[in-house]
């Protein structure tokens, strides 16, 4: 047992989908349990942090870490597991790029507390109580883990060897990773386990030269099931999203939202979407351009749906307002100066 390579599996701020996806490798999970000495897997097995601390540094061969970093807890566990592990794997979109929880980087903690505990329609909270990190009650003090203003990805807090993209990752790639580890054929550190092309490569729809005159919301039209969705004016992030999922969403007439993250070598997936989509707008005057863009609301929410926390800017701009950092707001939608016409 002891001479078996050690494996740890842990979740930070995640939804549990990655764990379920891990079970998607079916019977192979048994080989995994057989090959490895699983030293830490809270959701399935009875080990605790003290056991983990007892393990010598670097003694764990691989840690599969899913979930983003949002609280002190998440961070300290990531830190501990990093110390104990030779190979740290950012498992799934949350750990790799922040995923949907990363959308919280559009706002700040103050906003969250204010709405969730005070303004939400069902809340009755006359005393305006909000949860505190340390709460004195009679006989003692209760504590809650510190909640950060900013969601971070795993590699923003500890070093990471491999990345497994996807929300959640598809079983075949989990398998690929696990087998690579078991056969000791690990790719060079920093590698992403997956493909280096985009979803279009796997998408069976037929594509034409792009020219977008109008964006349609998914509910506004019933798309031709054989033609490229983007060609039909339906937003699809597939052009800028790493392949590997098998183009699942387009195959049910739904545009890709980019859960596999940007393609190999891309630094900022959102910027790439901006560049590509803006380039093919069929408009040459400021007015025409703005008119088309008005049909695509919430661009940041589309372009950084999964990657906000790992994007170059990482989060929305914070301003100091009476001693607190709060999200800066730009109310009006910026329009081009009509003078740019000539």
């Amino acid at each position: 047992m002891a001479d078996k390579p050690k494996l740890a599996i842990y979740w930070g701020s995640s939804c549990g989908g990655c764990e379920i996806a891990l079970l998607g490798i079916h019977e192979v999970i048994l080989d995994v349990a057989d090959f490895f000495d699983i030293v830490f897997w809270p959701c399935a097995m009875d080990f605790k942090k003290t056991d983990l601390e007892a393990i010598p540094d670097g003694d764990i061969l691989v840690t599969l870490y899913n979930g983003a970093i949002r609280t002190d807890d998440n961070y300290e566990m990531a830190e501990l597991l990093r110390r104990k592990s030779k190979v740290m794997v950012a498992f799934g979109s949350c750990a790799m790029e922040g995923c949907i929880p990363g959308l919280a980087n559009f706002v700040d903690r103050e906003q969250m507390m204010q709405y969730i505990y005070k303004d939400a329609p069902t809340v009755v909270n006359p005393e305006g109580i909000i949860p505190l990190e340390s709460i004195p009650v009679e006989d003692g003090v209760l504590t809650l883990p510190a909640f950060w203003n900013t969601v971070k990805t795993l590699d923003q807090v500890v070093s990471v060897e491999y990345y497994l993209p996807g929300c959640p990752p598809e079983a075949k790639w989990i398998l690929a990773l696990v087998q690579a580890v078991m056969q000791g054929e690990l790719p060079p550190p920093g590698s992403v386990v997956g493909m280096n092309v985009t979803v279009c490569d796997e998408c069976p729809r037929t594509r034409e030269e792009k020219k977008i005159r109008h964006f349609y919301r998914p509910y506004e039209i019933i798309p031709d099931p054989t033609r490229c969705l983007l060609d039909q004016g339906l937003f699809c992030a597939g052009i800028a999203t790493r392949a590997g999922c098998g183009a699942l969403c387009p195959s049910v007439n739904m545009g890709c939202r980019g859960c596999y993250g940007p393609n190999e070598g891309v630094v900022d997936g959102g910027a790439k979407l901006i560049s590509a989509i803006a380039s093919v707008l069929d408009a040459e005057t400021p007015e025409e351009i703005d008119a088309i863009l008005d049909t695509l609301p919430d661009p940041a929410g589309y372009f950084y749906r999964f990657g906000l926390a790992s994007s170059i800017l990482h989060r929305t701009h914070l301003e100091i307002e009476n001693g607190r950092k709060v999200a800066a707001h730009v109310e009006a939608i910026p329009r081009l100066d009509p003078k740019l016409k000539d």
Partner: protein
Amino acid sequence: MADYKQFNPAWEEKSPVIIGFLCNWCSYRAADLAGTSRFGYPSTLRDIRIMCTGRLDPTFVIKALREGADGVLVMGCHPGQCHYEEGNFKAMRRVALLRRTLAQLGVHPDRVQLGWASAAQGIMFTEIVKEMTERIARLGPLTWQDNVDDVASLHLPPLPQEEISHG
């Protein structure tokens, strides 16, 4: 150095930093002409020569803001005058969408601006730089790193700044 405190005290002794993307054929030559003609303008602009504004990858703009620039100025040929027919139209579309996206991230649209100047418009070039510098000066420094070093976020409820700093 020019005093930018008058526009916004947050500058203290600092000056705005603007990254410029100038197309090789029009705006870069306009800048050259401003030089040969000794038309002065604020030293805030640090420019990069690209063959055409069509080469402008929004990643560059975002990168500049993240790396400490307070604003980004993209300048090309006048519409219809692009050396490559229509690269400047592509740039206009990208900047339009980029500014909408950045606005959602709390970046004031004035921080990313687009302008045209032909090779013969040295004066126009200097005026655009002056105007942009003034707008940025009013907005104050961006210092994006502060958003990421989110020290204040580590404690609940927010403590006074000085106590946070050693948090």
